[in-house]
């Protein structure tokens, strides 16, 4: 399964293409410019001490890349893995640099061609997703699909919040390491 990033007629500036996909029963879209490829879901290895929405890491032809589960990120139950499950490989901006990461999707749907005036502004409430993750909404028949700002999804602040809590724990660990030692010695005696 593979979608290449070729635009046949790049001339109209205002039109852009979006890949839509299904996650937790809802249709989302992401700019095709950000999408590098789509791969079948393969085992994702959980990384301990990371937020729940960070599914883990997977092997993309020898490269280890992070995979996120948007369902959890958006406060829904975790995605169920089926034979349609796939990972959309995107190039997101993370701390000012491009980062290859995977987005778990229940299935991919289609490529939408939208002009700027076909994209509605996100209303201040009513969407399941926090508006800061959205670029807008695209009409999809009678329904709307939420256009994601993929750069914001893996925001530095949220990742930092995670890594920092680990870091402070660790700093605490170092300090208490010395403290624990005497206690532990007594403990050894009790154990022996």
């Amino acid at each position, binding site marked *: 399964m593979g979608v290449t990033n070729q635009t046949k007629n790049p001339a109209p500036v205002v039109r852009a293409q979006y890949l839509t996909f299904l996650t937790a029963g809802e249709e989302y879209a992401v700019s095709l410019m950000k999408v590098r490829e789509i791969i079948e879901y393969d085992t994702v290895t959980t990384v301990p001490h990371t937020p729940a929405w960070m599914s883990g890491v997977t*092997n993309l032809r020898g490269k280890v890349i*992070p995979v996120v589960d948007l369902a959890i990120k958006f406060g829904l139950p975790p995605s169920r893995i089926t034979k349609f499950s796939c990972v959309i490989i995107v190039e997101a901006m993370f701390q000012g640099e491009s980062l290859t990461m995977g987005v778990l999707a229940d299935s991919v749907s289609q490529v939408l061609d939208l002009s700027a005036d076909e994209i509605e502004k996100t209303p201040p409430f009513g969407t399941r997703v926090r508006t800061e993750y959205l670029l807008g909404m695209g009409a999809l028949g009678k329904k709307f699909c939420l256009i994601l700002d993929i750069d914001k999804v893996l925001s530095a602040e949220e990742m930092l919040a995670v890594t920092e809590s680990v870091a402070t*724990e660790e700093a605490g660990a170092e300090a208490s390491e010395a403290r624990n030692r005497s206690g532990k010695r007594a403990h*050894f005696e009790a154990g*022996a």
Partner: protein
Amino acid sequence: MDLADFDRGAVLASFLVESEEGLDLMEQALVQMESNPSDPELLHTIFRVAHSIKGNATSLELTELAGFAHVIEDLLDVFREQHVLPGGDVISLLLKAVDELRAMVAAAQSGPVELNSRQQGLRKEIAKEVEKRSKRVVRTNGTQEEAGSGAKLDSLPTSNHRTLRADVDKLDHMLNLTGEIVIAQGRLRQMIEKLSGEQGRTIVEMHREAERLYMDLQSEVMSIRMVPVGPLFRQFVRSVRDLAKTHGKIARLEVVGGDVEVDTTVLEQLKDPLVHLIRNAVDHGLEKPEIRESRGKNACGVIRLSAAHSGGNIVVTLQDDGAGFDRARILEKARSIGLISEKEELREQDVYGLVFQAGFSTAESVTDLSGRGVGLDVVRRNIDNLRGTVEITSAAGKGSTIAIRLPLTLAIIEGFSVKVGTEVFIVPLEHVTECTELPAAERNDESSGILSLRGDPLPYVRLRRAFGLSGETPKKENIVVVKINEFHAGIAVDELLGGMQTVVKPLGRAFRRVQGIAGSTVLGDGRVGLILDVPSLLRGVMQTGLPAQA
């Protein structure tokens, strides 16, 4: 310091390489300046090259060469002061000077350089240019009388080795590719081993042969990346001298084992910790000359930087003959900032370990060298990142020794793979001392506990619980016994899978410092396995504390 104190031949060799590179850079910058006369950074680049050639030539007592570089520097300085870039004429003149410098540097290989008449002419021309553009008076022959007094040089035997300089990025890429091949080979082997019949056996046999060739290739690629530590170590010879001088001390650095080789990436990342440790040794370790003499030591302090191989590791040792770490003061400081409690008594080792904590410094004043309380914690972090360990031993009044133990390469490790539930983890083999079955009495669901290993208590951590992994603890569990410094501990896992060569892949920027995880690797079946960071895993467990037992 006398040049005879250290290996002049080696310094000369690195001077030759550096100057060659510098001159190439200077030439490029000059040419670029001609076509793009608006980038002041180019002028700085050129200036830096001339300056470092001058400095290095002076320290090698290549007086004439240094003098020549000096006028070039003067000329560039004039432009820097006047904030203008040189025009075409001057650029041509400087390019000519680059050519002559190249010839002189090459000639320096076989002995002291004397300017020939063309070079002297060029030097005068440059000097004239300086005088024309500023009020400066340039001595054109001032250094000549010193030329004869230089130390006698032995001519270097020229090497017949054919060499090629290569981009480290390319080497990294090559190493990555060989790593990929190892993984792909492993996956292929798992597949074809299932084949049956005569043909299957033949395929497996041929595959084994190919694997041997790939292993050879990989070790060749690894060996290309190995560089001697000498050039890095020798850079510190000068800085120790200068640092000591600014502090009213006398010191020299001895380099031992400069030809020990280590992966170029490891060496790169070793530089910062060494800078910190050497500064610390000069600033805190060594005493002032008068104090040293009153203590019956030579006024000149000696810092010995040595490297040696030990198993699959390199051990870098920094030894000084200074005052040693002040145990009482470290304890006092640690108590005052709350690292340890008032009554707590620590083992000798643990006391010195405290200096690697963030914010720790016993220096009373903030000096330009150290004393800001930053530095040694950075050392620990850098060494942790290199998967190394650091140990301090110290004797009051006699000096201290800091031993850094590092793996020879970061790219591939010998791993021991274990399984918890469906997940595979790799324990670096260097930490593993033995494996044993978890005694029946310890079968529970606690996150940690103590078991008796041949009568000695061994604290262990249950990986499933430490990492919050799903699944039931199986009936039969195994213990991997690990050793960090002198500390033994156990890691309880479901299954032991065995040793394997592991290609280390960083987890990437999205995960910066995950506690207990050092990196990842692609397993034989294509899945990603995580590599345990044993020291950090154990630190994490100690923080949450072992279960109370009374």
